[in-house]
């Protein structure tokens, strides 16, 4: 099956096996290893990517469904100013997620900040239940997301 997709801002056309999962397309075909493979059941949340500006689990997304879609992985997101807001926010409060869940946490933080630039602690804690990894202190995570929100607010006002 031939599909065309916009992957990290670059148009790609390729012939795929319809029964392929998006995560395997990203990791094995394109070598985008920032998206991590976890449970393949949609429980762990490590494999989050943006599909048409919606955060989806790439393990539960068949590759064919990205046809005519726009996929952004952590590699594509890394060069954007929004990524630097989050990176800076996390660093300022010394929040360092582990290498396995970091990409999913950054993308989820971006999804939250797209909804609101004033996320509450309750909202952050609730949304991050989507990621099972318990690598760091949740209070630091809350502080990191709120700091990233403050940096983004500041940057947007400056613009």
């Amino acid at each position, binding site marked *: 099956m031939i599909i065309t997709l916009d992957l990290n801002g670059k148009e790609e056309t390729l012939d795929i096996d319809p*029964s392929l999962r998006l995560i395997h397309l990203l990791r094995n075909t394109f070598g985008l290893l920032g998206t991590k493979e976890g449970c393949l*059941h949609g429980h762990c949340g490590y494999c989050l990517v943006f599909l048409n500006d919606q955060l989806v689990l790439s393990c539960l997304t068949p590759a064919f469904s990205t046809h005519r879609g726009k996929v952004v992985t952590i590699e594509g997101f890394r060069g954007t100013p929004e990524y630097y807001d989050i990176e800076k926010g996390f660093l300022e409060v010394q929040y360092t997620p582990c290498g396995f869940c970091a990409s999913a946490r950054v993308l989820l933080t971006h999804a939250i900040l797209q909804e609101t630039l004033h996320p509450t602690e309750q909202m952050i804690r609730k949304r991050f239940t989507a990621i099972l990894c318990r690598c760091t202190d949740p209070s630091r995570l809350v502080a990191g997301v709120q700091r990233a929100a403050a940096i983004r607010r500041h940057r947007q006002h400056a613009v």
Partner: protein
Amino acid sequence: MRYNLAEPSIFMPTTLTEALAWKERHPHATVYAGGTYLLWNQSGRLLQLPESILSLRNIKELNRFGRTESRLDVGATVSIQRILRAGPKVLSPLLAKALEGICPPSVTSMATLGGNLGVPDRCMASFPVMHVLDARCELRSAKGTRWVPVTGLRSETGQLQLQPVELITRIQIPMEEWNFFIHRRIGSSPYGITPDSLVIVLVGKTYRGMITEFRFALGNFSSHMYRNRDLETLLIGTRLSRGKSKDLKAFLYALQEELQTRKFLFSPLQIERVLRILEVTLSNPFQYT
């Protein structure tokens, strides 16, 4: 070595007219929207897909969402997260709580209300809620459109009353003000479908401490769900009081008798849990709303 010799035929239309025309020619094609039910229990590297798939993901007409004064109009492929994002000004607290209970937070951006209602072999978590709220679905085929209340979406034998050529395209949910509501999803796994999973939905209106309207439904992810309007009327006209009143006792006793005749549907443990939850919550429903 690969044994997956036959590739599934997948159609990804961009308009509803194309989708309906294709469904007319391939009535047994599996409809794909969020994909969560199709893929949730597949653990292999390659997905086991049905022979033919109709993907509704790129159809913008099905992705509309709006609210009028009296109802909420949800396109069949609108994700649960998008509905939840509308916030408390658009959603009633009951609906927000019920939608949060449909699926784990990690898949709310993928799961759809249309998909949840349209699962052929079981009543999923949204079914009892939509049943109680008197929601209705727009069903469309190439030949025409019809509206069906969610109560009529399944037959008495639990079969989905959807013609093979029809698609659920829209869900209309009345936005009534309820004085108290209770939504509980219980089971050994909070979002999983296990033999002890159960959804309890209960809504009511009161006037000067008297129940003027009362509805409740139970779902356990089998092909049936339980709602009994005769039992609902037992509580109408009674006064809410702290503790177990005489009317509440009579209601619980009648419910226990009724559920015990449906042992094929509910296990003794589930019946016990339902009765206990109803006893505690109905003794002071406002505390649990």
